C-alpha cells in the first residue's frame, strides 16, 4: 500500500491560529486542558484539548480551568477570543456524563451546576467579540458553551444538537434560555424535545450558526469578525413574539400533546419539564436560567434519567468490546436474501468493499435496490450513495471469497445447505480469513462439524432491520480462537454495531428471551384477549411494540421456527404452538413482509382497533417476567457473561423499555424476591412454564 498523501498532511488541516502547525507549541500551557495564545492581530485563540480523552467533554475540571483562563483573558484584553477544539473528533461532545451517574441529591447537583453557570455567564459577558469555531460534534454542554459566544462559525462537517432528552434530561447549562432567545423558540423547543442532531445547512437556516466555511477560511473569518466586517442575520421580532406569554401558552399545549405521543410523561418526565420551564419562565431569561438549574437537578435524580444514563454506559461497555484492532478491508457475504443483502449494504456503507454472492441475479438486484433506498435515506451527499453502491459488488460466481478478510454466511436456515456452502468456501478462502454465520437457530457445534478450521469460525447474529438494530450477537463455540472472537467484535465496531458476546446455545440470548414473550401472547389470544389489548399491556410497560405486533414484524414463519427449535432443544416448558399459527404460516400470512399476519399492514404500519379494552394489571407480568426468567437462565448457564451484557443486548436488540435500564436492572429495582413471588403465583395460576429459574437465588 502506498502512503496516502492526505494522511501525512491531515494534522495541518485544523486551523488553530497561532497554535497551528508548524509553529504551534504544545508545551508551556498553565492549564491541563486549555491552551491560549494571541495571534499577530492581537486575537486570542483558546483551544480545548482535554487530556487523556479522545473527544472533548465538559467535565467540571474543564469548566473550572476555563474560569481561570477567563481571568487571563480579562487581564490581557485581547481584540477577540476564538474558542475551538484541538481535537480532530470535534468541538465538544457534551457534558461528562460520568459525573451525573449515581447522583441522588438534587441540591448537590444545583450547587455544582451553579458554579458551571457562573463560568459560562462570565464568558457570555466578556466585553470583546467571542467566536466559537465549531467542527465535528457540538452537542449538549458543548453547544451551550458555543451559545454563550457572540458568534458561531461552523466547518462543513459540524453537527450540533441537544441530545439531553435522550438521557431523560434537558439542557442544563443555560441552553434552554439562550437557544430560545437566539432562534425561533418553536424550533428551539423542537430541537431540545427531539434531541435530533442538526447539520450545518439547517443550523445556518435556523440562525444557530452565523456562517459555514472550511478550515482554510477560518483565519479570514475570524479576522473579518474582529474587524467588525462580519454581518449576522439574527432572528428578530418573531422570536420576541413567540416568546410572549400567550404564544407560549398556546404552543406549550401543542408540544405537550406531541411529546406525550412519542414519550409518555409517566415514563419520561423530561419533555414535560422542559415545556413547563419555557411556558412559565420563557419571558424572563434570568428567572428561566435559575429555574433551568432546579429543573435539571430534579430530573437528574429521577430513576428514568439514571436508568437512561445507565443505558448510555451500557452502550459504552458494548462499544468497548468492539474496540479491538482488526484491519480487514474486504467482506464477502453469501446469500442476497433480506439479511445477507442488508448486512452487505451496511458494511459497504461503512467503507468496506463487499462482495455479495448469490447464484441468481434477481435477489442480487433486489439487494442493490434495498441498499440504494437505504443509502438515499441516510446519506447527506449523493457521492456517498454512489461510492457505497460502488463498494457493494454483486458476485454471481462467488469470486470475492478468495480475497475476503471476513466471510459472512447468510443462506437459509438449513444445516445441510450451510455445511455444503462451508465446504466450498473453505477451499477458496484465505487461511487467515474469518468465516461467520448469521444463523439464528442452528447450534454452532453442529455447523462446525466438517470444518477444516473451526477455530476461524464464529456466529455474527444480526437482527432485522440491520440498519436500525444496533446489536449483533457474537456467538462463540468451544473450538473458536480468541483472536477470531476479538476480530468479530472489532469488525462490528467498524460498522457501528454493538457486539454482545454469547455462547452457542439454542436461540442464543435475544431470541431465546423473546420467544416466551411471544408465545405467552398467543396463549392470551386463545384465552380471548384482544390482540390490541395484549400489545397495549407491553407498550404500557415501556416496550417499543407489543408481542403480537413484534411477531408480525419479525415474521410469523421465523417466530414459529425459532419456537420449534427452542422447544426441541431446551427443557423449559413452552405452551403448544397454536394450530392457527401454523395455518397462517402455511397460508403465507407471515406478517409485515406479506402485508397480512396477526394484523393487516398498511404502509408499514399495523392496522389496529383503537377501541380495544384496557389490559388487566397482571398482563404485563405475564408477558415480561418469562422474558426476565430466561435472561436469568442464560446467566446461570453462562450463555452471557454478566447482567450488563444482558441489559445492553435486550435494549439494543429489542428496545426493551430503556427507561427501566434493562431487564436485569428492572428485576433488581423491583426486587428479586418480588419477581420470584410473582412468577410463582403465575405458575400456580397458568402453569409450570412460569416456575422461576434456580438462578434467581444467585443474583439477589
Amino acid at each position: 500500500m502506498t502512503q496516502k498523501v492526505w494522511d501525512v498532511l491531515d494534522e495541518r488541516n485544523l486551523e488553530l491560529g497561532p497554535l497551528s502547525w508548524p509553529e504551534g507549541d504544545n508545551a508551556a500551557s498553565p492549564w491541563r486542558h486549555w491552551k491560549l495564545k494571541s495571534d499577530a492581530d492581537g486575537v486570542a485563540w483558546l483551544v480545548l484539548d482535554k487530556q487523556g480523552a479522545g473527544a472533548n467533554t465538559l467535565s467540571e475540571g474543564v469548566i473550572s480551568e476555563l474560569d481561570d483562563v477567563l481571568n487571563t483573558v480579562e487581564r490581557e484584553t485581547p481584540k477577540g477570543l476564538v474558542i475551538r477544539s484541538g481535537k480532530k473528533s470535534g468541538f465538544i461532545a457534551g457534558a461528562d456524563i460520568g459525573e451525573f451517574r449515581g447522583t441522588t441529591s438534587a441540591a448537590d447537583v444545583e450547587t455544582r451546576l451553579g458554579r458551571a453557570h457562573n463560568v459560562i455567564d462570565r464568558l457570555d459577558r466578556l466585553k470583546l467579540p467571542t467566536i466559537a469555531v465549531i467542527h465535528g460534534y457540538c452537542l449538549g454542554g458543548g453547544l451551550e458553551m458555543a451559545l454563550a459566544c457572540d458568534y458561531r462559525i461552523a466547518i462543513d462537517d459540524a453537527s450540533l444538537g441537544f441530545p439531553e432528552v435522550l438521557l431523560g434530561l434537558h439542557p442544563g447549562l443555560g441552553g434552554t434560555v439562550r437557544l430560545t432567545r437566539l432562534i425561533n423558540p418553536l424550533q428551539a423547543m423542537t430541537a431540545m424535545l427531539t434531541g435530533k442532531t442538526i447539520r450545518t445547512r439547517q443550523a445556518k437556516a435556523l440562525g444557530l450558526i452565523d456562517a459555514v466555511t472550511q478550515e482554510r477560511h477560518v483565519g479570514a473569518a475570524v479576522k473579518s469578525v474582529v474587524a467588525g466586517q462580519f454581518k449576522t442575520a439574527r432572528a428578530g421580532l418573531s422570536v420576541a413574539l413567540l416568546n410572549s406569554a400567550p404564544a407560549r401558552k398556546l404552543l406549550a399545549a401543542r408540544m405537550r400533546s406531541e411529546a406525550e405521543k412519542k414519550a409518555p410523561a409517566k415514563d419520561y418526565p423530561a419533555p414535560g419539564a422542559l415545556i413547563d420551564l419555557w411556558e412559565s419562565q420563557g419571558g424572563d431569561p434570568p428567572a428561566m436560567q435559575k429555574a433551568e438549574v432546579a429543573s435539571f437537578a430534579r430530573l437528574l435524580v429521577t430513576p428514568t434519567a439514571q436508568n437512561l444514563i445507565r443505558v448510555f454506559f451500557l452502550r459504552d461497555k458494548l462499544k468497548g468490546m468492539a474496540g479491538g484492532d482488526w484491519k480487514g478491508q474486504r467482506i464477502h457475504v453469501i446469500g442476497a436474501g433480506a439479511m445477507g443483502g442488508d448486512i452487505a449494504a451496511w458494511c459497504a456503507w461503512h467503507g468496506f468493499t463487499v462482495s455479495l454472492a448469490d447464484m441468481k441475479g434477481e435477489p442480487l438486484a433486489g439487494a442493490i435496490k434495498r441498499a440504494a433506498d437505504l443509502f438515499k435515506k441516510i446519506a447527506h451527499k449523493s457521492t456517498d450513495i454512489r461510492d457505497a453502491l460502488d463498494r457493494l459488488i454483486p458476485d454471481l460466481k462467488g469470486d470475492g471469497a478468495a480475497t475476503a478478510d471476513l466471510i459472512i454466511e447468510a443462506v437459509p436456515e438449513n444445516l445441510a445447505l450451510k455445511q455444503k456452502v462451508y465446504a466450498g468456501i473453505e477451499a477458496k478462502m484465505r487461511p487467515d480469513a474469518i468465516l461467520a454465520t448469521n444463523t439464528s437457530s442452528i447450534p454452532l457445534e453442529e455447523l462446525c462439524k466438517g470444518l477444516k478450521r473451526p477455530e476461524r469460525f464464529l456466529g455474527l447474529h444480526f437482527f432485522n432491520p440491520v440498519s436500525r438494530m444496533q446489536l449483533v450477537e457474537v456467538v462463540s463455540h468451544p473450538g473458536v480462537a480468541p483472536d477470531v472472537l476479538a476480530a468479530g467484535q472489532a469488525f462490528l465496531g467498524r460498522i457501528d454495531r454493538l457486539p454482545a458476546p454469547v455462547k452457542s446455545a439454542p436461540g442464543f440470548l435475544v431470541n431465546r428471551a423473546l420467544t416466551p414473550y411471544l408465545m405467552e401472547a398467543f396463549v392470551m389470544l386463545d384465552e380471548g384477549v384482544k390482540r390490541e389489548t395484549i400489545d397495549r399491556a407491553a407498550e404500557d410497560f415501556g416496550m417499543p411494540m407489543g408481542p403480537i405486533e413484534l411477531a408480525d414484524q419479525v415474521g410469523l414463519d421465523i417466530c414459529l421456527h425459532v419456537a420449534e427449535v427452542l422447544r426441541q432443544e431446551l427443557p423449559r416448558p413452552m405452551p403448544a404452538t397454536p394450530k392457527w399459527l401454523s395455518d397462517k404460516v402455511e397460508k403465507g400470512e407471515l406478517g409485515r413482509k406479506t402485508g397480512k399476519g396477526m394484523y393487516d399492514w398498511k404502509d408499514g404500519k399495523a392496522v389496529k382497533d383503537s377501541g380495544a379494552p384496557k389490559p388487566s394489571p397482571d398482563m404485563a407480568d405475564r408477558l415480561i417476567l418469562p422474558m426476565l426468567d430466561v435472561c436469568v437462565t442464560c446467566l446461570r448457564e453462562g450463555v452471557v457473561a454478566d447482567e450488563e451484557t444482558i441489559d445492553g443486548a435486550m435494549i439494543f436488540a429489542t428496545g426493551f423499555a430503556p427507561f427501566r435500564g434493562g431487564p436485569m436492572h428492572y428485576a433488581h429495582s423491583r426486587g428479586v424476591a418480588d419477581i420470584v413471588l410473582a412468577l410463582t403465583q403465575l405458575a400456580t395460576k397458568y402453569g409450570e412454564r412460569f416456575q422461576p429459574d434456580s438462578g434467581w437465588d444467585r443474583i439477589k
Partner: protein
Amino acid sequence: MNDRPVYIIDGSRTPFLKARGVGPFTPVDLAVQCGRPLLLRQPFAPDAFDQVILGCVNVIADEMNPARVAALRLGMGEAMPAFTVQINCGSGMQSIDTAYRYIQDGTSDLILAGGTEALSYAPLVFRRSAVEWYMQLFAARDLWARLKAFAGVRPSFFKPIIGLERGLTDPIVELNMGQTAEVVAHLFKVTRRQADEYAAESQQRLARAQAEKVFADEMEPAFGRDGKLYDFDDGVRPDSTADSLAKLKPVFERPWGQVTAGNSSQITDGASWVILASEDAVKRHGLTPRAVIVDSEWSALDPSIMGLGPVLCSTAIMRRHNLALNDIDLWELNEAFAAQVLACLAAWNDDKFCREVLHLDKAAGLIDRAKLNIDGGAIGLGHPVGASGNRIVLHLVNAMKRHGHKRGIATECIGGGQGGAMLIETV
C-alpha cells in the same frame, strides 16, 4: 530493441444496452459495473496495476477523464495514474494498443485497458447563436442592458441540436456515418438485399450465441439502483430475416438509400475492460495468459470512405507477418454497417483495389464467412463507439479459445477516415 511479450489475461464487459431514452448508467457507471467483477476475481489487489487507460468518445461533463474517475470508483487507490484515449470508434482498442506499447517497452507491467460509452447520454447541444445570446445576457450589468440582451432571443435558439447526430457526422466531408456506408456500398456494388441478408444473419448468430451462453465468461450483468437486472445484450432481434429487414426505410439518404436502422449498428451503451500483463507480472501474480498481442496497426484514408479502414490496417499487419487472409483463423470486423462490412470483403476481393491501394500482386481473396464475426456483431449488439474496439478484442480471444484457434484479427472502421487492427494469438 528487445520487445517484451504482452499478454491478455482476462476481461469483461457489460451487457450492451440499446439506448431507449437516457440510460441507467453513465460512461463511468458502465466501466465500474463490469470492472468490479473483473477485479474481484483476480489474485492480485486492485491497486497492483501500474495504470488505467480507458477509451471514451462522448465524455460527459460530470466525468472528465473517465479513466481516472473509474479507477478511483473501482477502488484502485488514489495513487493510480489513469488517462482517457479517444480515436473515435477505435477508442476501446486504442486503450489496449497504448497499454500494449507501455508494457512492450518495459514502462509498465500490468495495465487495465478499457472502453466505455453511454450514447444515450449524448447531450443536447445549444446552437452557437443561442450560446452567444446567453453569454451576453449573463454579462449584462444593469437592467437596461439585460433587457436589451434579452430582446435578442430568437425561436431557433431553443431548437437544440442533438449532440449524437453531430458526433456521427464527419466535419471534413460533412457526411453522416450512415452516408459513408452508402458511399462504400455504391463503390463496391453492395446491394440492399446483400446488406439485409448479412444483418439478418448477424442477428441470428448473436441469438444463437446468447442461447448457447457463449458470453457467459465475458459479460457481467449490470445492476441498476432501481433493482433492475441487465443480464443480456438487449438489441438482439432473433426474428430478423432478410425479408423483414427489407421493409425498413432508409434512414440516412431518403428515398433511394439502402442503409436502414436494421442493417446498421445500433445506438447503444456499454463498456468493456481487458487486463494486459508482462511476463514479469504473469510470474509475480501467478496469472494464466489467454493470448498474446502480436501486432497492431492504425491506418487512415479519406473520411468519406472511412468504412474501408479495416482493409488497410489489417492488410498492413498481415504483410508484416507474411500472412494471407486465410492464415487468420478468426476475424472480428466491427459491424458499423452491414454494407460497410461487405464493402471491406469486396475490397479484398477486388484486383485493382488490392494492387493499387494495398500494393498486393492481386486480389487477396474472400474471407470465409464462417471465420468472420461468428457470434454476431454490432448490428445486434450495438456499437457504443468507445467500447466496441475493446469488446471485439476480448471476444476474439474468447472465441479463439473456445474453438481452439491460434490466430485472429480484430479490426474496426473509424469515423473520420481511419481503421485499427490488432493481431492476437492464443497461448
